[in-house]
């Protein structure tokens, strides 16, 4: 399939989101608070990695794109590259992102664009990710005093990275304003049920809204890539 340049840019943005978040979830392997979460987090990571592979393959060679690009060439949201932190932090990131991804993919699946086939499959996976994040938000928010405090802090800390999701992306034919309104309504409803306040403050990212999509990333991202790419780069031309 030959795609035009703007569609490829959009595929890269969506593919990088899935690739980077999948990697972060992989860092949980062997560290999860209960065995059931080892299974769940790996499962979500595997779904995201599958999506990333389809999307990156729409652009070029998946491994070249994953392993041989520098930080400045990655187009993922700053939200997905944020370090795992504690379990609440990971859940807050999942809540924000899976809600966005579910709304986005539902829209892409309904349209007739180049992302419709991928979105039609992915939207089912993402519905499960979203449910997982919502259930844990409820458990942690409406659990113990400690868990509520941790969840409140996590939701607040990641809030500033959420505006970037609704900035226009060339080649992605979605109504950002409507998406944002739906996202806010959904997240607010979950936080209310979890007895958590909706965070206040700007939602403009580390430098400016849309920075990750332009290749401007937060500091921990370079280190994440160094780990991810090290072995591949150490053996140029090798196949695995």
């Amino acid at each position: 399939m030959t795609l035009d340049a703007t569609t490829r840019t959009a595929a890269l943005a969506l593919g990088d989101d899935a690739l980077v978040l999948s990697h972060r979830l992989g860092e949980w392997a062997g560290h999860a608070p209960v065995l059931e979460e080892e299974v769940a987090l790996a499962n979500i990571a595997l779904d995201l990695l599958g999506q990333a592979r389809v999307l990156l393959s729409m652009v070029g060679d998946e491994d070249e794109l994953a392993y041989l690009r520098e930080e400045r060439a990655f187009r993922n949201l700053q939200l997905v590259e944020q370090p795992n932190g504690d379990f609440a932090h990971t859940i807050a990131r999942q809540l924000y992102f899976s809600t966005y991804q579910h709304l986005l993919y539902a829209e892409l699946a309904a349209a007739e664009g180049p992302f419709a086939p991928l979105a039609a499959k992915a939207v089912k996976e993402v519905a499960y990710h979203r449910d997982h994040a919502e259930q844990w938000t409820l458990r942690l928010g409406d659990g113990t005093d400690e868990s509520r405090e941790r969840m409140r802090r996590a939701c607040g800390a990641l809030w500033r990275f959420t505006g970037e999701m609704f900035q226009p992306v060339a080649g992605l034919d979605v109504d950002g304003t409507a998406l944002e309104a739906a996202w806010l309504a959904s997240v607010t409803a979950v936080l209310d049920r979890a007895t958590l306040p909706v965070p206040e403050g700007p939602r403009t990212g580390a430098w400016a809204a849309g920075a990750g999509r332009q290749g401007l990333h937060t500091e921990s991202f370079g280190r994440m890539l160094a780990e991810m790419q090290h072995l591949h780069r150490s053996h140029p031309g090798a196949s695995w």
Partner: protein
Amino acid sequence: MNDGPPVLAAPEEYEEYFEATIARDQRIEPRDWMPDGYRRTLIRQIAQHAHSEIIGMQPEGEWITRAPSLRRKAILFAKVQDEAGHGLYLYSAAETLGADRADLTERLIEGRQKYSSIFNYPTPTFADVGVIGWFVDGAAICNQVPLCRSSYGPYARAMVRICKEESFHQRQGYELLRTMMSGTDAQRQMVQDSVNRWWWPSLMMFGPPDENSPNSAASMAWKIKRHSNDELRQRFVDMTVPQAEKLGVTLPDPDLRWNEERGRHDFGTPDWDELMRVIKGDGPCNAQRVERRRTAHEEGAWVREAAAAHAAKQTARAQQGAAV
């Protein structure tokens, strides 16, 4: 259920019925009477098996974030996920005997229960991921396929599911090594180096030699175990040697050769002192493996408490709703 067990009166009759069930190769089920020793041996063996699955996630999990291709990364994710799932089946099987998963986890992190000696060896290179699949999952299959006929029903049924997935992992591990062996010189050296490091520890996975295996006799009499350690070790060697030839690697044992008379391979003696040291906690990674499990467990305590508190609130609300 068909006719169900007969109604028995005296303890001697229970014991007789148990022995007869074992002798007929029928399964013991959770509600059946069983000797205390049988119950204790099974809890110990199934728990250690479950712990091995969970600790075994670590050496390969090390490579999820560094896997050199997206395909290999996906395979690793799926494998580590399967291992967590195997741990869950096995803890469930142990719980049918009256054990408690939280208590078994405590025993693991306090060093009161063991896990497979093999997971105390490090994975410094990516070839180790392939060699673990080939040797370690291969050895696990030799051990576990006979356990599908183990006398205790829940254990045997767990093993059926686990063995299917393990043989899939073993093939994937071997396939990774084949890919690497047809790659660059550096990749081939990485594979040979890994084979050299993992061969003897893999042979030790079958446990001490038969004359020095305290639990074997009872386990075999009860048909929990079906074959001796040495017999399984021999099967593993016989299965693996041709695979090594096909792959183009050597196995680091000067005494390894085909014995025409026996129709089996002769091989050297593993370093049993090393095995004893590793089992007693003094292997290369024992401390870090248990520490990591402990840290995950302790750092996750607030999450488990939150889930329990939330569930209690939900129950209370439901009862209140019902009362109104």
